[in-house]
């Protein structure tokens, strides 16, 4: 058998999952569009009513409120009042509507997110997906409705002994939630996508390097589209990644953005109530999720001790994952994805976020430029990791 040379396959080619290639093209086209005009809540309510009636919902919309938080989607919380079955009185259910602005900070396909949420029902806690309008028939942009899940993404009382960019949990939440976090991560990776295929998801199995190649192919394409300025560390990182592509023989379903801040939890019960933000889910290498979780800038330092996503110390996390999943963590592969993880976040804040803000394509331009202040942190972290590789 001929050995596949990973670098030869990648060089200057955008080898990536077909669905993600479509997203890159959509982003390219969207760049030429005029500034985004924020729709009023009243206008959104009208569109929502049209959608629900067309979908056969019987009842009426209660209050619609725009939600804060997040840097990408527009989110609305609404109540739906309807008559209960068997002659009961009026019943009320709460839902979340999520729509894309003109150019989200990360280009994603809500059909895939919907499929991921559907597949995860009953396996890990996720919001129940209810309606999908990928074509933008009602809102002129992709939209999705899920059931509302209560919970918070960060403690209501701040932790003052810790520092860092990551969401801070502290004790006792840390000790009480770490095992849940691990259990759900392992459950996601254990999803049997061969027997239960995920619509819209392709499998990077043409050669052992394709999982890694698809990931860097997508982010390289986004970098080329969105970059504001060249930066030596980014060029050095791309070339390093090309040379170090890891092989993957154990493809799993990955979340893509699994970390504290992207799940809801009940503060009193210290219980994870919903895992959110599945837009970057794909079939790939489990090391990609592990590296994302272990990123120093998503973690927290407390009394000089580092906690990944404020749940696990680094080595504890690796050992716990190996024990819970039965998989081996390959340190060289992990390092590849750690460097890629920092590069991805650099691209998100320094290229995509600022590019969207410059084009006035989001309702949260001010949030994107605010987050842009993290750019040097990611550049610095990327430099630190690459220096360790010299």
């Amino acid at each position: 058998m001929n050995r596949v040379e990973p670098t030869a396959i990648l060089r200057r080619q955008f080898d990536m999952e077909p669905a993600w290639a479509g997203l890159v093209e959509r982003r390219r086209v969207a760049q030429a569009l005029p500034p985004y005009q924020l729709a009023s809540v009243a206008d959104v309510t009208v569109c929502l009513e049209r959608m629900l009636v067309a979908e056969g919902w019987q009842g009426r919309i209660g209050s619609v409120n725009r939600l804060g938080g997040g840097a990408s989607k527009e989110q609305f919380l609404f109540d739906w009042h309807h008559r209960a079955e068997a002659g009961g009185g009026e019943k009320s259910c709460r839902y979340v509507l999520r729509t894309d602005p003109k150019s989200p900070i990360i280009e994603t396909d809500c059909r895939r997110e919907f499929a991921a949420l559907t597949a995860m029902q009953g396996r890990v806690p996720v919001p129940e997906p209810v309606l999908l309008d990928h074509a933008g028939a009602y809102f002129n942009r992709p939209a999705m409705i899920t059931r509302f899940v209560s919970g918070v993404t960060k403690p209501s009382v701040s932790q003052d002994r810790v520092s860092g960019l990551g969401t801070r949990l502290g004790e006792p939440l840390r000790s009480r939630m770490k095992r849940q976090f691990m259990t759900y991560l392992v459950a996601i990776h254990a999803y049997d996508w061969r027997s239960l295929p995920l619509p819209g998801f392709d499998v990077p199995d043409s050669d052992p390097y394709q999982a890694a190649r698809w990931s860097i192919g997508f982010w390289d394409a986004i970098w080329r589209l969105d970059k504001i300025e060249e930066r030596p560390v980014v060029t050095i990182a791309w070339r390093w990644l090309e040379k170090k592509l890891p092989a993957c023989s154990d493809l799993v379903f990955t979340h893509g953005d699994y970390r504290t801040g992207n799940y809801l939890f009940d503060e009193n019960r210290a219980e994870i109530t919903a895992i959110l933000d599945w837009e970057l889910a794909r079939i790939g290498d489990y090391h990609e999720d592990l590296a994302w979780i272990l990123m120093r800038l998503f973690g927290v330092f407390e009394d000089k001790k580092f906690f990944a996503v404020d749940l696990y110390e680094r080595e504890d996390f690796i050992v716990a994952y190996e024990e819970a999943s039965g998989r081996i963590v390959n340190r060289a592969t992990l390092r590849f994805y750690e460097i890629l993880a920092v590069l991805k976040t650099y691209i998100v804040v320094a290229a995509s976020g600022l590019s969207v803000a410059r084009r006035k394509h989001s309702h949260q331009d001010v949030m994107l430029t605010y987050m842009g202040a993290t750019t040097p942190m990611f550049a610095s972290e990327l430099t630190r990791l690459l220096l360790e590789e010299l």
Partner: protein
Amino acid sequence: MILPTVEERLDSIARALEAVIIPSLPEQAKLAIELTQLSIGHLKIVSGQLDKLGPLMATDQAAIFELGSGLAAQADGGAATMSAATALKAVLGGSDRYVPSRDVIASLSAAVCHLIDAASEDGRAEFTSYAVRTGLAFEQAQSGRERELFYGYGFDSTDNM
């Protein structure tokens, strides 16, 4: 002296947002409140940065000039490397080292990256290694300066440094 100063104008906008606009927003207008608070934070930090921006740009420009000059002088390798080195020399020669300009910094960064990229294709091993080492040393200093500038945003911590 130009009066009112830029700082005075920014500070007065922040105060209007903080003291008048936010209190008059309805409680359920969460996104509006959140974005207004961010705007206030931005304005206050920008106001405090104004004095530092000029000297910082001059330092950045000197640093990228130094990196570019070193790489251009040391470049060694095949056609791609030597062509990128020639292009970098042209940018260096056509830019004023002592007049700080974002465009000059951006042009030099692009030419430097092109040379690092080309060196990974056909550069001599010694030069490729030199380009990576000096490129990362440059980034260490550059990102350090930038982190100091943006420290007021509250994302960074000395633990990460």
